[in-house]
């Protein structure tokens, strides 16, 4: 279910690190309630794109508009108010290893929204249950959990504040196919339950096909193609075809040095 006005609009976003131009003019719209998946190989700028939207990196030029509000250069209270509307699942889970699981999940409620600890713990246990984890897990520390459980906790943390927009950074990387599918199902369920807008970056095509309403492909810092998820196999774009089918031969050339 999408609305006409884009929830997130990127126009001409560029970002360089030294002489390396990572983003070279990204134009992208994400509709309200839409689940957009950005696919692309390693080093094509997916994570940088996500960090620019989140405000963790400052773009060199271009515009990032969220709900009609320009966010590039936004600071202080305005930025915090904007961040309160976001949820984020990090690639490596990024759980705070000095805090128990429940406090990780409740962190945004306690620190960002000043919810009392007792009420926040109840909410955290509720969110842990939503991702299939029992209350006993709440008192463990992240280091005591498996990779799949850490991803679930990270997902619970991302949805704990019931955000309007949720970002997923490689949500299935490093998981076995069954656990990856469990995470995909949880993402779909959580996003639907919240009615949130979701922006996911991944190179896992099975995940992209499952959770996307629309897919966009990034290559060399530009959006090369975008369209409905079910039309990806008929994109007519040789770069997309090569990526989707995981072929070594094609227009995308990997820099491999001969032995």
């Amino acid at each position, binding site marked *: 279910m999408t609305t006409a006005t884009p929830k997130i609009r990127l126009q001409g976003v560029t970002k360089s690190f030294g002489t390396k131009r990572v983003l070279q003019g990204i134009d992208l719209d994400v509709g309200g309630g839409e689940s957009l998946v950005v696919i692309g190989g390693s080093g094509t700028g997916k994570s940088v794109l996500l960090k620019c939207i989140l405000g963790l990196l400052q773009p060199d030029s271009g515009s990032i508009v969220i709900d009609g509000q320009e966010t590039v250069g936004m600071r202080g209270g305005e930025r915090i108010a904007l*961040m309160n509307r976001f949820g984020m699942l*990090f*690639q490596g889970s990024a759980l705070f290893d000095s805090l128990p699981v429940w406090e990780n999940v409740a962190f945004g409620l306690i620190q960002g929204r000043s919810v009392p600890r007792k009420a926040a713990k109840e909410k955290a246990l509720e969110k842990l249950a939503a991702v299939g984890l029992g209350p006993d897990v709440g008192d463990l520390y992240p280091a005591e959990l498996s990779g799949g459980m850490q991803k679930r906790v990270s997902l619970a943390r991302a949805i704990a504040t019931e955000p309007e927009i949720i970002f997923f950074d490689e949500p299935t990387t490093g998981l076995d196919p069954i656990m990856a599918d469990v995470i995909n199902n949880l993402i779909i369920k959580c996003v639907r339950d919240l009615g949130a807008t979701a922006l996911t970056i991944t190179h896992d095509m099975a995940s992209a096909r499952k959770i996307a309403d629309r897919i966009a492909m990034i290559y060399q810092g530009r959006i090369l193609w975008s369209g409905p998820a079910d039309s990806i196999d008929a994109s007519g774009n040789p770069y997309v075809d090569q990526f989707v089918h995981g072929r070594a031969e094609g227009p995308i050339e990997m820099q491999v040095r001969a032995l």
Partner: protein
Amino acid sequence: MSFLAAVGRTFLNFLAGVGRLVIFTAVALSHCVRPPFYPRLIGRQIIDIGYYSLPVVGLTALFTGMVLALQSFTGFARFNAESAVATVVVLSVTRELGPVLGGLMVAGRIGAAMAAEIGTMRVTEQIDALTALSTSPMKYLVAPRLLAGLVMLPCLVVVADLIGVFGGFLVGVYKLDFNAASYLSSSWQYLETVDVVSGLVKAAVFGFLIALMGCYHGYHSRGGAQGVGAATTNAVVSASILILIFNYGITELFFAR
């Protein structure tokens, strides 16, 4: 020409580094005085820095006081000034050795731990996660450590001063056969408020510098385990060097005629 370019590049990098540190310090200080505050985190840092450093600082002070008494006695015996041992011990410990050696020990223990903890948080994206959860990492991670360092090192140095003087007393009375009462009265007779206050001011500055270096290098660490290791080393080395430099500056400020 390439030599000059290399020198110029190094100098510019140095200036850029100083600029980054100054900006980091200013931002961190501004977060120390603006709400929200995190009393729970400040409390945890106070316990980490103050309570858990007590054994290492206490042992350092004890043996420093003992060695000082022994060394000054054997040295002063050459010109019949053995009676000055108690005064030398108390002045050296309160003015210099308490804050400097205490500071260096805490730099090794706490500066390294801070850099390693914050550096690991940086490379595992935990600092990005803090920002994504609407929490300023400067306020949540850096400000509590700076405040705890600033407050707790003077407390540690008060303890170090007492233990250091006690170490000198032990050697003086039980090994060098001083009279206990006259040793203590000699210690108090020449001790002035400024001696203790200057040591505590040094301790506060050193505590701030140790926490600042730990946080700064951890916060800017890059590239996994190697980057965290480098940040830890840099935090300890830079804090130790700054302690020695600032020690001279503060001594000049208090005692230069």
